[in-house]
């Protein structure tokens, strides 16, 4: 639905944010490598959808917190500048459940978020008189 402003949304149509399907992931708070938790396969599917787990892997994941998930969590934490714990800690999951764009963050195993989508090096020099910065793309 389209609404001119928030107050125009009919009360009976107001659905609170807890209806976000991803909010169920908050139940995984504290999960870490070595654990097995019912439904953990769903968060692996989430990470695969956004590129953190390769598309080449079949989507019938187990509920094990294995190295695949640990690597995905670490890459996610790196991209979103969270503490890299490799665990599904509270701050990480609070970020995971926020609505987002459907375009993957990781393409073919390369993060597009941390300068990974491009490869550039610079030849840097400073002009003594003007103090202007020069950079040459290589």
């Amino acid at each position, binding site marked *: 639905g389209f609404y001119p*402003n*928030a107050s125009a949304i009919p009360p009976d149509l107001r659905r609170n944010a807890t209806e976000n399907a991803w909010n169920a992931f908050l139940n995984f708070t504290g999960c870490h490598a070595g654990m097995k938790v019912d439904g953990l396969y769903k968060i692996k599917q989430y990470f695969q959808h956004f590129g953190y787990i390769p598309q080449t892997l079949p989507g019938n994941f187990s509920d094990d917190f294995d190295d695949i998930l640990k690597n995905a969590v670490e890459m996610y934490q790196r*991209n979103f500048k969270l503490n890299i714990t490799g665990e599904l800690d509270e701050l990480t999951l609070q970020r995971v459940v926020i*609505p987002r764009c459907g375009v993957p963050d990781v393409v073919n195993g*390369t*993060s597009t978020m*941390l300068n*990974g*989508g491009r490869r550039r090096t610079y030849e840097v020099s400073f002009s003594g008189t003007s103090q202007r910065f020069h950079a040459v793309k290589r």
Partner: protein
Amino acid sequence: YSFFPGEPRWPERRRNLTYAFEPQNNLAEEVKSVFSRAFVRWAEVIPLTFRRVESFSTSDISIGFYTGEHGDREPFDGFMGTLAHAFSPPTGHFHLDGAENWIVSGEDGDGFLTERAAVDLESVAVHEIGHLLGLGHSSVQDSIMFPTISTGRRKVDLHSDDVEGVQYLYGSNPNFNGSRTPTPATEQRDTGSGNSG
């Protein structure tokens, strides 16, 4: 900022782009005007123009609201979750999840809407147009190209990170004097090591 692999962009001969809306959506003029405002934000900083046309099948950029599976094998997931997606140049497909509550007024005052179960349409539109132009996601939280947007949040002003990224692809709009950029980059990038992640 980042780019899609291979740094795809609209070619030199296609810098005056057209956009059209899915006819079956029957969008009100007020909704269409939200996208017009979003295109202007990017056009202010790069030498590209965006013109609305009626022909959905021949426009450079096609905009539509859909639910569930809608033909690109990237089904939407209903209320919240994934809000929209767009394709890299020169595909021009821009799809939004029709299951969301979209706020179209563009009014907020302090950057935050009161409704926690609604999404500001212009904020999402500005982000997805960034993808249409060739930008990937950014790890700079205040940038338009950061992947997440909280419900009730309105974020429509290009960050210097967004401006630098899109101007790398297309150069600067001759009329752009830099004053449009509302927020400075807060981090240093390009330290020379190239790839990361």
